[in-house]
């Protein structure tokens, strides 16, 4: 396990070194901030694990929440990189994300108000599961907007999405299984958590080795005219085709 730990730190360091060397930190600041925090957390954890093993559990969960919160920076980076050049899609994505957060918090407020025995999370592990689940839902919302508006994504962004998505997707299921099966599941949880993160690091290493931005650029031709004309034009075309099909199929 210690070998994996060192390897993970080495890979994190390599990704950060490449980012500094290729000046990619300026392009994806939030993502590299997340990775820097994770590396710092790993180094601190290693020190605590070897020097003060008695403080390990407490220290682990405190730092785990630090990296969990920093994970939202990755989500923000994905949102920014994917949708920023498309002002309409960005607006759509922003409202979708806000809507998801509002729905989650409304659900939590409703449950805590109506169920007397209900608490957001009985254990720290369940709390992590719930917060990761929110990340999963938000990322799914962003991906839905990307697919809906046919937004082209480059290798770097694809890597960020795949790496982080893989990590949080697997971990939500992993944490849910741990909560359900209890302590007996702990070795499996530990194994899956470690290797899923390692897989994410490998994805990031390959996809973020050099700067490969989204195909979209500032030189993208912007449409002329206004949105209302576009929407009414589409609506008109749809009505025409629909009327045609409807009349054709009617007996």
């Amino acid at each position, binding site marked *: 396990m210690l070998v994996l730990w060192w390897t993970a730190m080495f890979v994190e360091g390599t990704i950060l070194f490449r980012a500094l060397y290729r000046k990619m930190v300026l392009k994806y600041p939030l993502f590299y901030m997340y990775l820097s925090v994770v590396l710092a957390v790993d180094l601190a954890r290693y020190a605590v694990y070897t020097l003060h093993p008695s403080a390990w559990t407490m220290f682990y969960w405190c730092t785990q929440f630090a990296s969990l919160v920093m994970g939202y920076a990755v989500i923000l980076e994905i949102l920014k990189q994917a949708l920023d050049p*498309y*002002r*309409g*899609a960005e*607006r*759509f994505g922003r*409202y979708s994300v806000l809507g998801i957060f509002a729905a989650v918090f409304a659900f939590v407020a409703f449950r805590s108000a109506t169920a007397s025995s209900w608490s957001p999370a009985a254990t720290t592990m369940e709390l992590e*599961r719930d917060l990761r*689940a929110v990340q*999963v839902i938000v990322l*799914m919302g962003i991906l*839905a907007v990307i*697919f809906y*508006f*046919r*937004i*082209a*994504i*480059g290798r770097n962004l*694809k890597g960020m*999405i795949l790496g982080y*998505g*893989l990590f949080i*997707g*697997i971990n*939500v*299921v992993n944490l*849910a*299984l741990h909560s*359900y099966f209890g302590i007996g599941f702990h070795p499996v949880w530990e194994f899956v958590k470690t290797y899923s993160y390692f897989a994410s690091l490998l994805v990031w290493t390959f996809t973020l080795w050099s700067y490969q931005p989204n*195909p*979209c*650029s500032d030189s*993208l*031709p912007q*449409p002329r*005219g*206004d*949105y*209302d004309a*576009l*929407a009414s*034009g*589409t*609506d*008109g*075309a*749809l009505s*025409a*085709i*629909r*009327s*045609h*099909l*409807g*009349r*054709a*199929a*009617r*007996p």
Partner: protein
Amino acid sequence: MITLLFFSLIGAGLLLLLALVAGKRSAGVEGTARALVDARHALRTLQGELLPPGLVERIFAKQDFNFVTSATPQDVQALFLRERKKVAICWVRQVHAGVLKLMDFHLGQARFYAKLSLATEMKLALNFAALLFACRLVQFALYLGGPYAVPGMVRRTVNNAARLCETSEQALTFLEPFRVDGLSNGSTSDSGSS
């Protein structure tokens, strides 16, 4: 158990989306000449292939069927119906593809507008979904009953086709948000016809 199912479902949902992301073809540079040529091609498909009155009239012309039934043996009639059914289904598929292209173009343009209206987009998304579903329904009807299964189909189709093409042509002018003069004047023949 329900909690486990819920978290497993959202985890699996994300992994499924990630598989789609991984399989998503990395497009070239957006906004290149290729994209413009594609845009022109799709516009031409909508205007020229989707609903030309002559084509629609010919596909569903009952005169052909009447002639075949009056002058040929049974097996030829059956063959005629089979072939005509294939053509009719192919036509609906083209309409379906045209609607999809229209949708692609709308979204390709709408994503740039800061004033994009969520309500309008949702309404259009529903309309597109309904229309695509209608295409599938007509295709299914043709598949089950053949090209002459619906009595009013031919007459109404032909009557509406000409009017519709005019309407569509006017409505689809927005699909030319940017000029492609370079292509029109150049060697590419795509831009000449529309």
